[in-house]
């Protein structure tokens, strides 16, 4: 039976260790766990926060669809994907993906696959709020993200 993914879209922060523990607790059939955390970055010191908007309902549904594709494709033992919305300050968490599998490459590929599709297909949008109080506008989608996704074809 295929593993059932844990999907959450939430305003509050997540706790990586809690989520890993939930995935592997009491199991001895998992040999590899890969986590990806995406954080709000601010190289120049000009960003006050990112504001994450999402399409409620569809965001969860797309994340679940992507997660189930990854579980089937890489025979994952477990998968968790959590995406935050609302205002997120530099250094804070935005997204978490955890993939658990027997062998290491499947866990790496599973988490990487989910991130590539989540970037390009899950309905979330980022708006910049700058340190000077102005709005930096909406973050543009990147061709590089489409290319990263297309490596899984």
């Amino acid at each position, binding site marked *: 039976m295929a593993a059932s993914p844990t999907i959450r879209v939430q305003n509050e922060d997540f706790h990586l260790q809690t989520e890993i523990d939930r995935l592997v607790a009491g199991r001895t059939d998992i040999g590899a766990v890969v986590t990806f955390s*995406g954080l709000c970055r601010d190289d120049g010191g000009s960003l006050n926060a990112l504001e*994450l*908007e*999402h*399409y409620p*309902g*569809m*965001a969860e*549904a*797309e994340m679940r669809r992507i997660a189930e594709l990854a579980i089937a494709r890489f025979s994952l033992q477990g998968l968790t994907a959590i*995406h935050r919305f609302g205002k997120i300050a530099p250094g804070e968490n*935005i*997204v978490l993906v955890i993939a658990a599998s027997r062998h290491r490459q499947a866990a790496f590929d599973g988490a990487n696959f989910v*991130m590539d599709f*989540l*970037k*390009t*297909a*899950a*309905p*979330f*949008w*980022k*708006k910049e709020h700058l340190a000077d109080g102005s709005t930096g506008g*909406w*973050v*543009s*989608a990147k061709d590089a*993200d489409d290319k990263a996704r297309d490596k899984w074809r």
Partner: protein
Amino acid sequence: MKVKLVYFAWVRERIDKPEEEIELPDAVVTAGDLLRHLKTLGDGYEAALQYPEVIRVAVNQEHVDHDEPIAGAREIGIFPPMTGG
């Protein structure tokens, strides 16, 4: 056909409302037809849908291409390319 439209990100900002219910003319068959129709409804719609080729459409919360029919849609989402993650 009456349908609920929901807008996100800068599409929402330019149309200046998060959602609305509208009555669609019979000539609107595909997602692309819908975008072309909305563009005629005023300056905000015109600004939001100026480059319809970049706009994404979801029917009942599933992505559709612009040439797909929207018949049977209860809710249609209209938004820019996604930038989450």
